[in-house]
């Protein structure tokens, strides 16, 4: 090694020993000046410590250089991964140059790879603008988020150049968007094609505003769930000065999203009231007797010029109106879900007054209220195993010694939503909140200890791992006749657990595509439970393994609450102000032919899960 020629001076050193150490180092590198070498020899002759240092330097050099002969070997697929990332970068750069640098909202330094997806999204997003403003001559903004984008702060408008063949996806996306009147409107979008994820651009059809469900929410919901048939929403509201915390079911007007043609200009609704173009359900009839006042109101009952009237909840007398299925409860966790066929909805909740811990509730579609199926105040819903079987987990406490906090772990059980009968699953070991795949073979769950949240009777992970593991290990099938034999041996080995994340997680949400071919996992940030990162993984259909060398989406920022269904993943990016309401909806749609992404423009949006 040869350094430049800046000669060290004797007065550079605080002590002669420090000077000797520097000279020893320079001697190893072959840059010691002859005059300094003479001084060093003299010093070493009289300094035992520095002689030992010289010997140590020589020895550690030999020890280090022994590693030269056997350098570590990089993984074989490193070039493939790097080449793919560079290709993404290349396409993004091309697009950025064409767009005049108009993207700029997402720091490139974050990622080299998703930028390709962003390139696609911006192209599609701008197509929306150009189609609606230029092609249709429809100047009036309509209530959909897409149309509003046409004249607002969307990406720089441009025309997509001919390129790759678009991928036909035919997806329908519902989300909630804050309207100009301050209400939250259920908004729909038809995505018929996307540009291939690996192409620069293509002549894809723009997403089109779909037939509006015509439902507005007068207050900002905490979260919203939609059923498979798009016939109803479950709206979760937090308590405020005007209303108690509640969970309500809001029927949606009948719709036929798959068959609906793109709306013509004249058919586009222009009223912010969002009246359904084809109302097929009778208007909700306000009842006069009720003590509850839900915060939701179908727009059929409200005019465009004033706030929609409250619709008292009398479920039995207003079959077409909203139903409050739970009041004065707070939704706990992220796992609430409809059953596979959509006949049930299960969730975890606790009393809003903090008087007790969480229990599992189920609501059968058509019933007037949800029903608690546990009453130990320490149980949480994990997922549905099948249409008639839910999986829950309960916290088991072992008293701590010497006044220490109790040790808390969890065991899981099956529960029949009809009879509330529970069947313990000791053979699954220490598992909490398992999200089981549609085949019932694998699950994402927490394994480790739990803690009690300091300011509420809610359990959170303490120490352990979020893993994917076999749900049906050796032994009787968990879904048929659960074994009463506790899991023996090493759980991580027996269940082939693979760690997704470790540490003191705040919250997470793991959901499977109904085919079991994709798994999406959202994990909350440690400092803000409303915001986290979302990843999407492909599951090998043959052996159930995950090819994590090529995650489909890896750690993209997302607000709590995403939606995954066959062929699409929908999420909201965190708003710039840090609020839990997202700033933009992203749709990643895929088929066997490839994948692409579209996005809405910036707005206050909320994914319908």
């Amino acid at each position, binding site marked *: 090694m040869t*350094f430049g020629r800046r000669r060290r001076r004797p007065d550079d050193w605080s002590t002669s020993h420090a000077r000797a150490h520097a000279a020893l180092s320079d001697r190893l590198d072959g840059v010691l000046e002859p005059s300094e070498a003479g001084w060093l020899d003299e010093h070493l002759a009289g300094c035992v410590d520095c002689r030992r240092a010289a010997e140590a330097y020589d020895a550690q050099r030999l020890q280090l250089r022994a590693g030269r002969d056997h350098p570590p070997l990089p993984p074989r697929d490193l070039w493939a991964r790097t080449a793919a990332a560079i290709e993404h970068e290349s396409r993004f750069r091309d697009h950025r140059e064409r767009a005049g640098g108009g993207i700029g909202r997402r720091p490139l330094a974050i990622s080299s790879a998703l930028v390709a997806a962003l390139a696609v999204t911006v192209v599609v997003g701008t197509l929306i603008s150009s189609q609606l403003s230029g092609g249709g001559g429809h100047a009036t903004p309509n209530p959909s988020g897409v149309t509003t984008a046409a004249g607002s702060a969307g990406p720089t408008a441009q025309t997509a150049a001919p390129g790759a063949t678009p991928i036909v996806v035919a997806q329908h996306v519902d989300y909630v968007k804050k309207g100009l009147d301050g209400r939250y409107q259920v908004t729909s979008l038809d995505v018929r094609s996307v540009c291939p994820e690996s192409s620069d651009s293509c002549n894809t059809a723009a997403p089109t505003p779909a037939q509006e469900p015509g439902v507005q929410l007068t207050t900002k919901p905490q979260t919203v769930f939609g059923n498979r048939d798009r016939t109803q929403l479950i709206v979760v509201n937090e308590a405020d000065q005007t209303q108690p915390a509640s969970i309500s079911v809001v029927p949606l007007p009948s719709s036929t999203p798959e068959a609906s043609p793109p709306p013509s200009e004249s058919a586009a609704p222009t009223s912010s009231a969002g009246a359904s173009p084809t109302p097929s359900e009778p208007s909700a009839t306000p009842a006069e007797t009720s003590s509850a006042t839900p915060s939701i109101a179908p727009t059929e009952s409200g005019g465009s010029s004033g706030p929609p009237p409250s619709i008292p909840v009398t479920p039995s007398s207003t079959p077409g109106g909203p139903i409050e299925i739970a009041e004065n409860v707070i939704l706990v966790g992220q796992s609430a879900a409809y059953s596979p066929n959509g006949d049930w909805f299960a969730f975890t909740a606790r009393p809003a007054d903090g008087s007790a811990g969480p229990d599992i509730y189920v609501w059968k579609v058509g019933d007037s209220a949800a029903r608690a199926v546990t009453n130990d105040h320490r149980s949480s819903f994990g997922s549905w195993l099948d249409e008639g079987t839910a999986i829950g987990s309960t916290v088991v406490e072992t008293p701590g010694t010497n006044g220490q906090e109790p040790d808390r772990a969890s065991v899981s059980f099956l529960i029949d939503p009809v009879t509330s009968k529970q069947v313990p699953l000791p053979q699954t070991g220490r598992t909490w909140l398992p999200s089981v795949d549609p085949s019932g073979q694998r699950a994402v769950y927490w394994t480790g200890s739990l803690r009690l949240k300091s300011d509420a009777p809610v359990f959170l992970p303490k120490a352990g791992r979020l893993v994917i593991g076999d749900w049906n290990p050796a032994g009787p099938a968990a879904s048929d006749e659960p074994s009463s034999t506790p899991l023996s041996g090493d759980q991580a080995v027996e269940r082939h657990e693979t760690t997704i994340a470790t540490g003191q997680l705040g919250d997470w949400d793991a959901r499977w595509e109904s085919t079991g071919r994709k798994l999406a996992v959202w*994990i909350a940030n440690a400092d803000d439970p409303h915001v986290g990162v979302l990843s999407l993984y492909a599951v090998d259909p043959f052996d159930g393994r995950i090819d994590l060398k090529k995650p489909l989406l890896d750690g993209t920022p997302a607000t709590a609450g995403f939606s995954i269904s066959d062929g699409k993943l929908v999420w909201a990016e965190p708003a710039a102000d840090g609020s839990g309401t997202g700033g933009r909806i992203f749709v990643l749609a895929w088929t066997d032919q490839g994948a692409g992404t579209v996005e809405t423009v910036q707005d206050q949006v909320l994914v319908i899960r």
Partner: protein
Amino acid sequence: MVAALDNRIRLGGFGGGATMSGVWERDAAAGFVEELFAAHHGEIYAYLIRMLRDPELAADLTQDAFVKAYRNYDTLEKPENARAWLYQIAHRVALDHIRRQKIVRFLPWTGESRGAVPSAERLVMDSHLSADMQRALARIPERQRAALLLAELHDLTGLELAAALGVSHVAARALLTRARESLRQALAAERDAEALAESEADARAAANRPSRGAP
């Protein structure tokens, strides 16, 4: 990896789409980086694994380093400096990662069961450094560790080392001097810790041994 952790985002793996060759033909930078990768990816990976002691992470960051090289191709003034320039990028990637490390750590998912962190045996095997040297290197400051590794194991010249570390050659010399002394002390501490552990084990064994000879 989370914002607090690591906001890397990756999208891919769906198959289909354009071929790589079409990209390379129209992109000289990509071609250059491809050559650079062929020549240096092994040593860059080796440097990162020695710095970070995590094979999967080292692979990820090697990929990042070459993507950054592609992105910043224009900043390379002289092709003959490419190696040092590449090390400089890798060094910054490594330091950036170390700075971003938070409590919650996301692990690469290989589809195979494995522990939360690589085992000591795996690290020794992967880095081909002795266990006590691994531990001692981990004890010293990152910049000093980088200087030592680049000088002793990666054979960078003085000017290359200065360029890779992003400092003057005088500062690089000073950093190496401090690094050698830090490593000497860290190795001594490792030996002391090992000796203490052995003596404690001997004491325990002696205490558990049945006494003989006394009536």
